[in-house]
C-alpha cells in the first residue's frame, strides 16, 4: 500500500511540472508583449505593469522565468488579483463556498444515479427504463448554461420558488437549485453503471440461490443486488467530484455564487487576464490533487488496484 502511494505521488511530479509549464508557456511564449496581453483591452497602468513584470521576472530568459514562477507557485505565492488582493486570501474566502456547492451536487448525483439506475435495472426494457434512458440522454446533452438558464427562468423568475441568484447568502438552501442542475446534467454516467451492474447481478448464481432459499425481493434487492452494484457508482462519483472542483466556473457565474469559479468568471468577463491565469493554475492544481486523492481512495476500496 505504501509503495503504491509513493509511486502514485512520484507519477504526479511530472504532471505538476508539465501542467504549470504548459499554462506558463501558453501565456508567455505567445507572440507580442505578454504584459500587454495580460491587460486585454485595458490600458495598462504603469504601477501594475511594474508589479506584473516583477512577478513574472520578465528581465530573465524564458526558462529562468518559468523556474522562478514555479518557485512562487510551490511556495504558495500565487500573486495578486487585479484589484490588488492576495490570491491566497481570495482562495481562503471562496474555496469553502465552491466545496459546499460541489459536495451538494455530488451527493445529489449519487442519489439520482443509485435510485434511477436501480429501478431501471430492475425493470429493464419496461416503460420506466426506456423513459429514464431517453431522459438521461437529454439531460446529458443539455449544455450546463442552458440548464442553468432554464432553472433560473422557471424556478427563479416565473414560479418564484428559489432566489434567482445566490449572492451573499451561501446557505445550503440557497445553493440547492444550482447544485440540483449540476447533478441532473452529470448523473447519467453513474446511472448507467448502476443499471448495467444491476442487470448483470440479477442473473448471477447467488441471486438465484437467494430466491431459491425463499428470500423475498425486499431483502434480495437491497442486500444482494444493490450493494454489489454500488462500487462502480462510488468510483464514478469520486471522479466527478474532481472534475467539478475545476468545472463550476459558468454555474457560479450565472448564479453569482461567490466561489472560486465565480472569481475566474468575473476576471474573464472583465478581461483581467493575469487573474485568469492565476486561477486557472490554482484550479488545475486542485484538480490534479483531487484526482490523486481519488486514486488513493480506489486503492483503499479495491485491493486489486494495488498490485497493478
Amino acid at each position, binding site marked *: 500500500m505504501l509503495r503504491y502511494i509513493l509511486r502514485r505521488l512520484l*507519477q504526479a511530479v*511530472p*504532471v505538476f511540472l*508539465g*501542467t504549470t509549464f*504548459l*499554462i506558463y508557456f*501558453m*501565456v508567455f511564449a*505567445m507572440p507580442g508583449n*505578454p504584459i500587454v*496581453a*495580460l491587460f*486585454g*483591452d485595458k490600458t495598462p497602468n504603469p504601477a501594475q505593469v511594474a508589479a506584473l513584470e516583477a512577478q513574472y521576472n520578465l528581465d530573465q530568459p524564458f526558462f529562468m522565468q518559468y523556474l522562478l514562477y514555479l518557485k512562487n507557485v510551490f511556495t504558495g505565492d500565487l500573486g495578486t488579483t487585479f484589484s490588488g488582493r492576495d490570491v491566497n486570501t481570495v482562495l481562503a474566502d471562496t474555496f469553502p463556498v465552491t466545496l459546499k456547492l460541489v459536495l451538494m451536487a455530488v451527493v445529489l448525483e449519487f442519489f439520482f444515479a443509485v435510485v434511477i439506475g436501480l429501478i431501471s435495472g430492475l425493470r*429493464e*426494457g419496461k416503460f420506466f427504463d426506456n423513459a429514464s434512458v431517453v431522459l438521461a*440522454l*437529454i439531460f*446529458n*446533452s*443539455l*449544455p*450546463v*448554461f*442552458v440548464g442553468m*438558464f*432554464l432553472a*433560473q*427562468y422557471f424556478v427563479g*423568475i416565473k414560479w418564484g420558488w428559489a432566489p434567482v441568484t445566490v449572492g451573499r447568502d451561501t446557505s445550503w438552501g440557497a445553493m440547492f437549485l444550482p447544485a440540483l442542475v449540476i447533478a441532473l446534467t452529470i448523473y447519467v454516467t453513474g446511472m448507467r453503471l448502476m443499471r448495467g451492474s444491476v*442487470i448483470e447481478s440479477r442473473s448471477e448464481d447467488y441471486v438465484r440461490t437467494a430466491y431459491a432459499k425463499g428470500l423475498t425481493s425486499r431483502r434480495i434487492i437491497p442486500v444482494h443486488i444493490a450493494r454489489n452494484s454500488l462500487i462502480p457508482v462510488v468510483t464514478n462519483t469520486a471522479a466527478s467530484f474532481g*472534475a467539478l472542483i*475545476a*468545472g463550476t*466556473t*459558468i454555474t457560479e*457565474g*450565472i448564479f453569482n455564487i461567490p466561489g472560486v469559479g465565480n472569481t*475566474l*468568471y468575473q476576471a*474573464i*468577463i472583465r*478581461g483581467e*487576464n493575469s487573474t*485568469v*491565469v492565476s486561477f*486557472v493554475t490554482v*484550479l*488545475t492544481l486542485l*484538480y*490534479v490533487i483531487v*484526482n490523486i486523492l481519488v486514486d488513493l481512495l480506489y486503492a483503499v476500496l479495491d485491493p486489486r488496484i494495488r498490485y497493478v
Partner: protein
Amino acid sequence: MSKRSSEHYVAPVDENEQIEVDAVRLGDRRSNLWLDAWRDLRRRPLFYVALTIVAVVALAAAWPTLFTQVAPNNDCALSLSNAGPEAGHPLGYTRQGCDVYSRVVWGARTSLSVGMLVVLITAVIGIPMGAIAGFFGGKVDSILSRIGDIFFSIPYFLAAIVVMSVLADHRNVLTISFAIGGFAWASLARIVRAEVLRIKNLEYVTASTAVGRSRFSTLVGHVLPNSLTPVIVTLTIGLGAAIVAEAALSFLGIGLNTSVMSWGNDISQAQVTIKTAPMALFWPSLFLTITVLAFIMLGELIRDALDPKARARR
C-alpha cells in the same frame, strides 16, 4: 523419411459433408461487425431522428439561404429591440433588433465548423499519439503517455479559457478550434492506446509481421483500421462536446467576436434580458441543445450497435 511421412493420418475427404456445410453458409447472411451494426441501427427509430437533425443542421450550415431569406445582420434596427414575432420574422428580434431566426440559421455554420475542426485536430494529434505509444511500447510509450498525462490533467475548458483570453486580437473559428482541440486530444489518445494494446497481440498482427511486413506498415494496415470502432464513437460525441465548448467560450465573451453569428454569442447577449425577453435566449439555446443531442445520440447509438453484448440484451 518417406516411411515416416506415409504414417501420417490423412482424413478421408467426404465431399458431401463439405457441400452441406457450404450450403448452410451460403444461405446465411454475410456477417461482420459493421454489417451487424448497420442492421441494428436501421431498426432503431432514434437513429433516424438523430440522422435527420444532423442532416438539417448540415444543410443549414452549407446553404443557410435555403432556410432564410433575411440577411442575418442587415436589417437590425434598435427600434425593433426584443420585438415579438411577426410575418417573415417567425422568432422575433434580438436585443440589437436583429432577426432571431436568421441568426440561428446562420449560427449553424459556425458551430458545425468549430465542431468538425476540433474533431479533425483531435484525431490528427490523438490517433498517432495513442497508436504509436501502444504499438511500439517501451520508452516511446513512456514518453508519449507522460506527455498525454500532462494534457489530460488540465481540464480542456480551463486551458481554452487561458488561450482565448490571451488571444484577444485573434478570436476566430480557427483559433478557438485549436484552443479546444489542442487539449481535448489526450483522452482520445488514451482510448486508441488501449485499443491498440489489445489488438497488437492478436494472431493476424503476428501473421502480418511473419510474412515480412514492416512494423509500421502492420500498424497502419492492420492494427489501426481494427481499432477505429471506439474512435468513431468518441469523435461523434466529441463533436457535440466541441460545439458546447465553443458556445460556452463565446458565452463568456472570449469565444468568437460578437459580430460572428454563433449560438453562444446570441445566448450571451440575450442572457441580460432573461426576465423581460426570455424567448431571445430560448431559441439559440434550443437549437444548440438539439444539435448537441443529435450528435451525442448518434455516437451512443453507434456504440450500442457495435457492441454485440448490448445488442443481445435488447
